[in-house]
């Protein structure tokens, strides 16, 4: 019982990790807390839903399309809402991204209404000793690992990825070296929203959702980012596993409704004791 729910939680944790990684990447590169993260996760869910229910496409193939659209959408959001206030105090970027959140939720509610949807897709399940696992969850976890590996290859092996790291490290110096910082920032924002959209798409393959569902995953992403250290993509994946594991273990000895209480108390305590995150360096 314990092992079964722990495994379930950990598999889910990989997907949480992807969502948090997007938030963490944007924070690390440009010091912006992206409050439009949740609605983008929801849009990812609806992307898969529309592709599967409307066009009958395989969810894992449509994930590629969702990722591409997420990337473009992120670049557009950066250009429209973030670029002008990138050097302003935190309040401005928080509110600018929140305005984007309101716009997406507003239009999304008008178009899709808030009734719950689900992607009626199943790959069956398999048993491993005493535990039974759903293939969709395993596939989602594998996809999450693949995405993380690709992200690391991109950041460390390609010229654009290296530019992103240079801009994150010191924007002024990077500009002096001839890196077009504005484009790099826009692209990083796009990558961050792409990760959000992918995680939304993966979640849609096993949980029902509404257009407002992104909010709770956004909050989870905050918790995970703080666990793993803001601005640290690999930390986000590990933070996701910790949170997923907790969500698996806690319900075995307490009522499920207490899970968020413990999550957020943990979140505040870590912020207080070690704001750089469990895996972060010096404060």
């Amino acid at each position: 019982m314990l092992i079964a729910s722990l495994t379930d939680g950990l598999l889910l944790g990989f997907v949480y990790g992807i969502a948090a990684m997007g938030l963490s990447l944007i924070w690390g590169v440009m010091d912006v807390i992206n409050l439009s993260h949740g609605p983008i996760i929801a849009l990812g869910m609806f992307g898969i839903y529309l592709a599967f229910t409307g066009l009958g496409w395989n969810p894992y193939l449509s994930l590629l399309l969702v990722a591409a659209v997420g990337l473009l959408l992120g670049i557009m959001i950066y250009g429209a809402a973030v670029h002008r206030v990138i050097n302003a105090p935190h309040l401005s970027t928080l509110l600018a991204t929140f305005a984007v959140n309101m716009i997406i939720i507003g239009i999304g509610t008008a178009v899709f209404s808030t009734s719950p949807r689900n992607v009626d897709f199943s790959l069956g399940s398999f048993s491993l000793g005493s535990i039974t696992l759903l293939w969709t969850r395993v596939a989602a976890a594998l996809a999450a690992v693949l995405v993380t590996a690709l992200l690391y290859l991109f950041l460390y092996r390609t010229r654009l990825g290296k530019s992103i790291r240079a801009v994150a490290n010191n924007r002024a110096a990077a500009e002096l070296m001839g890196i077009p910082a504005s484009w790099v920032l826009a692209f990083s924002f796009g990558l961050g929203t792409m990760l959000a959209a992918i995680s939304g798409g993966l979640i849609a393959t096993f949980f029902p959702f509404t257009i407002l569902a992104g909010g709770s995953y956004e909050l989870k992403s905050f918790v995970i980012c703080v666990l793993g250290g803001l601005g640290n993509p690999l930390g986000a994946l590990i933070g996701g596993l910790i949170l997923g594991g907790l969500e698996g273990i806690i319900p075995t000895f307490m009522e499920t409704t207490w899970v968020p209480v413990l999550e957020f108390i943990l979140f505040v305590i870590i912020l207080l004791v070690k704001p750089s995150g469990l895996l972060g360096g010096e404060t």
Partner: protein
Amino acid sequence: MKPWRNPGLWLVLTLTVAISLWPLVAANKAYSREVTFTILKAVALASSLNILLGYTGYVSFGHIVFFGLGGYVGFYLMSVHNAPLYVAVPAGALVSGLLAFLLGKAILRLRGAYFALATIGINEAARAFIKNFEPFGGPIGMSLKFKVYKSYGGPEQALWIAFASLAALTVAVLLVSFLVKTSRFGLGLMAIRENEDAAEVMGVITPNAKTWAYVLSAVFPGMVGVLFFFKNGNIEPPDAFNLHQSIETIVMVMLGGYGTVLGPLLGSAIYQRLRGLLLVSPLFKNIQLAVAGVLLLLIILFVPAGVVGWLRSRFPRLRRVLE
């Protein structure tokens, strides 16, 4: 200058009193009382948030926690222990102030975005906790029995009492906001906003100043919460700890102009009227949230100082009147 000789103070107070008196002269008294109640509630929340956000420069997404917690405590006293309103309101203030004091000691050490994140966490933790807390009714919440209103002379009378109390409270918030801004304490807060380290070097005892600013900004939403849920007659966790409402309050402060006394008043009034118009307009009804979002984005990008800030920099003569 003595505070009562400042025209800026009189402008703010006159506006508030004028808004509060409107239901007395309006044609449809009950309807206009409800509309005005919403506006006054927004003004009180925004002005109290402004003490922390505008003067001290700390972004809090958890302002509504105090509204919810104060509301819950006051409501609990009224529904379970039959306490009268004049006991419940101070009790709400006391508990909110106490929570802010304890939280302030802990999380005000965090700066910038980390503080903002912690306040989101606190809001969610509070809502999740109350959902599981049986004495407060758990996920269902509580509701007032109809006979409670009898001791106030019937429900109609009770609604007017709640309204009048809120109006008085709003005037008090604005007065406190003005006094803080013109005091030595307020000067210390604004020094913290501009540069916390420099303020500390200059002799502002920053931990204490920040904590008291936080407590002061928390006491008022606690009282507003009691009045609001007394008027409503029932209380539920999603209504009491609505993160969205916290953010709307920030929007109102920004719209009017943060760090000014008049700004939150104007911002809330404009925002609430606008929201009301969008909600009833057939064209925008479905996408009112998106329209509000576009507006917010335009303000942030092009008029970051808000209405009052823009007027002050555009027309320097107005600076004497617009505090």
